[in-house]
């Protein structure tokens, strides 16, 4: 008996050491895995830039790079919000609708060719307020009524588009008549386009929210397990609504900037943005199931897609082929990104 107890104690000690040694190995490998993904993305970006600059000498010029940054600015702003939503394990498809509604509201309240009131900065506040209302509505319906975010935001896309179309009415296009704002987005300040500066600010704030605030941390926790969040007494409800609100406001900001860039108000100002944003988040390595990922990775994803798009145009790929080519590359990239995320029975949902 004494014998047995003794042996088990010795066994316990030995086993613990064995476990510890194995664990430090696992830890090292885990850290490597965490780094390997963004690094491979960065490598892909470098390769892509290399290939395009071989094909076309105009690609690696300052003006084209500034062009790429301008192009990427709006998707970047929207993608920060989309990353937060996807980290929850949800999805926001309303992006383009919210962009349209916000853009139209903003231009009709600013100096434009249709006349009307020029509210100046209040136009921004009211327009972003519209985005906020749409976002809170999505968030509340999703959270309180427990409707899948996919469906709620799909509906909200069309509601936004509907609001924009109503505002648009049957009149002539509202053209922006503000000297200072016309072309502001692509104007260069300190070597970078203005809209890109805005994107940098949003990215910075996004990272701060995700890394260092309760909203950000609970978002990651919900993505891991909402059941645990609730049983830990954390504010799951409020955080979910807040994240949808943040995402919609960022979409709205994107909508206003897109309107400035276009110089005219259009309900379809956000057309095509969703197709860059969601794949960019996924290619960046943020899990669609939630809980894992980050904003910097999404930034890499957006760059990858914008450069791909820009490079294909410059390399003279016929526009009729372009969407097919982009689609193929997207699917391939996502298969690659999702490979490591399969579970041990290789179940995908």
């Amino acid at each position, binding site marked *: 008996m004494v014998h047995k107890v003794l*042996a088990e104690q010795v066994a316990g000690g*030995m086993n613990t050491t064995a476990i510890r040694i194995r*664990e430090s190995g696992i830890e090292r490998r885990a850290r490597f895995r965490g780094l390997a993904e963004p690094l491979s993305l960065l490598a892909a970006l470098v390769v892509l830039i290399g290939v395009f600059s071989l094909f076309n000498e105009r690609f690696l010029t300052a003006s084209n790079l500034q062009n790429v940054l301008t192009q990427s600015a709006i998707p970047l702003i929207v993608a920060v919000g989309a990353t937060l939503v996807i980290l929850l394990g949800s999805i926001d498809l309303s992006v383009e609708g919210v962009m349209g509604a916000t853009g139209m509201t903003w231009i009709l309240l600013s100096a434009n060719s249709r006349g009307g009131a020029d509210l100046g900065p209040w136009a921004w506040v009211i327009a972003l307020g519209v985005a906020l209302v749409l976002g809170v509505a999505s968030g509340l319906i999703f959270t309180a009524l427990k409707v899948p975010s996919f469906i709620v935001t799909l509906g909200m896309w069309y509601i936004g588009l509907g609001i924009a179309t109503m505002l648009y009415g049957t009149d002539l296009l509202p053209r922006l008549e503000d000297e200072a704002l016309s072309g502001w987005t692509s104007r260069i300040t300190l070597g970078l386009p203005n809209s890109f500066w805005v994107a940098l600010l949003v990215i910075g704030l996004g990272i701060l929210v995700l890394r*260092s605030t*309760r909203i950000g941390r609970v978002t*990651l926790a919900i993505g891991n397990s909402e059941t645990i969040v609730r049983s830990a*007494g954390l504010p799951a409800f409020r955080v979910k609504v807040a994240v949808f609100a943040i995402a919609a406001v960022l979409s709205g900001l994107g909508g206003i900037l897109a309107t400035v860039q276009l110089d005219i108000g259009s309900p379809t100002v956000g057309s095509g943005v969703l197709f860059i944003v969601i794949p960019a988040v996924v290619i960046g390595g943020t899990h669609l199931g939630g809980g894992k990922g980050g904003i910097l990775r999404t930034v890499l994803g957006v760059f990858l897609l914008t450069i791909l798009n820009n490079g294909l145009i410059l390399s003279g790929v016929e526009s009729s082929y372009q969407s097919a080519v982009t689609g193929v590359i997207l699917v391939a990239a996502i298969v690659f990104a999702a490979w490591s995320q399969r579970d041990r029975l290789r179940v995908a949902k």
Partner: protein
Amino acid sequence: MTTTPAVLHLDAVSKSFGSNHAVRGVSLSIRSGEVIGLIGENGAGKSTLLKILSGNYRHDEGTIAVNGREVQFRGPADALRAGIGVVHQEQSLFTNLTVAENIEVNTPIGRGGINRLGLYNWRRLYADAAKALDLIGSHLNPRTRVSDLSFVDRQMVEIARAIRVSASSDTTPLVILDEPTAILERTETEILEREISKLRNIGSVIFVSHRLDEVMRICDRVVVMRDGELIADRRVDDVTEDELFRLMVGRETHAAVQSRRSIEPASSPVISIHDITKAGAYADVSINAYPGRILAILGTSGSGRESVARAIFGAESFDSGSISIAGYSGRHLSIKKAVALGVGYVPAERKTEGMVGEMPADQNIALTHPGSAVIGPFELPRRRLALARMWFEKLDIRPREPEHMLQDFSGGNQQKVVLAKWLNSSQLKALVLDHPLRGLDPGAGETVKAQIRSVCDDGTAVILIPDTIEEALDIADDIVVMRDGRISGVYDLGHDNPATLDLLERML
């Protein structure tokens, strides 16, 4: 008797769901520094009682007082504030976050590592978490991600969190541990037991477990629940393990260990594994499983025994060697093929791999081998229900309501349903059981064990990954011991009589 008010005092607390009285008039008092064992069979009302204490359920009647003050918990946050931290049976850590964040998850804004603006001060957060870990004697790195931790370390993190949460209130913390050792290997359990014993220096503990020996070792007092009522409250010095067992199940004593009349190995094995190797998991493993015999594979958590078991079922691939099942042999075994050949598998991860919780129990039973419950592509619900009733009766699955969602059954009864799913096959040749008794109470464990024996006697080969050496010695005909991915010992219990110590030595 001390005069200080009890840390926690329950007076005639009741809770019912519809007509089911889950908890009936439970009164209980816990003083500071006491470790209380709470035992009872699955479905005895332990979980419900714990959920009331953790604020997840609201009780219908009775009063709960913390430090002499009556409390009403409206949610988990209230219970935390009152100083009650719970380590749930299911792991409740965010695996994607660091150890520190999991421990500090309930830190209110303006305290600890979170400033008044709600911004996190990570350095402070890591330091606080390290302090909480230190308090329970753990030296985990707070910056490690939880997904990279072993189970025993995860339990330590859970305990640290429970302590941290309750220590932030002004009362003595009360930590509730709901079967913290159920999913651990034996050696890991001992580490945890040692840590739990230390907790009495910090606060009080309610320790829920199925393992009576463990309760006797750790606790000062044991309370027993049966059918929703608290039927006994004893000091461990005044009670024996057998007495507790009797109180718990309401039966006389442990079911007598049946003496096995081992069937001599038949001429040909049902499953023959020849020199299979998987890089990083196991190497050169050869095992033969014969009809009518139970083969137990022993080993520690790094031995690779689980991987071998999963390979037999086609759930994991291997690099070289061969597995032949009932005459079929091929390198590329899939689950589909294994099932078609008559292999059944009861996984350790019951909730995620063994059952469909959101499906009624009867449909779960008829999932893989529907037998008479289908004709061609058509399902026959009435026959399926009859089939399920038969299994419910045979395996004593309670409550006898096969049309209820499987997730609403208790763990032991879920396990029986999973077993029934495979037993329903008319051509079951081999059954692979990965920790089949994990998390089951002794009563349910006995039934499952008896069922495994009877399946085996019907000529099925059973390959078992047991929780303990005792379980293997109790039930198996053959024992294979694995160490670091290689076989380190083979015993035929018909001829050999290995001591626990021998087996242990070969495991380590």
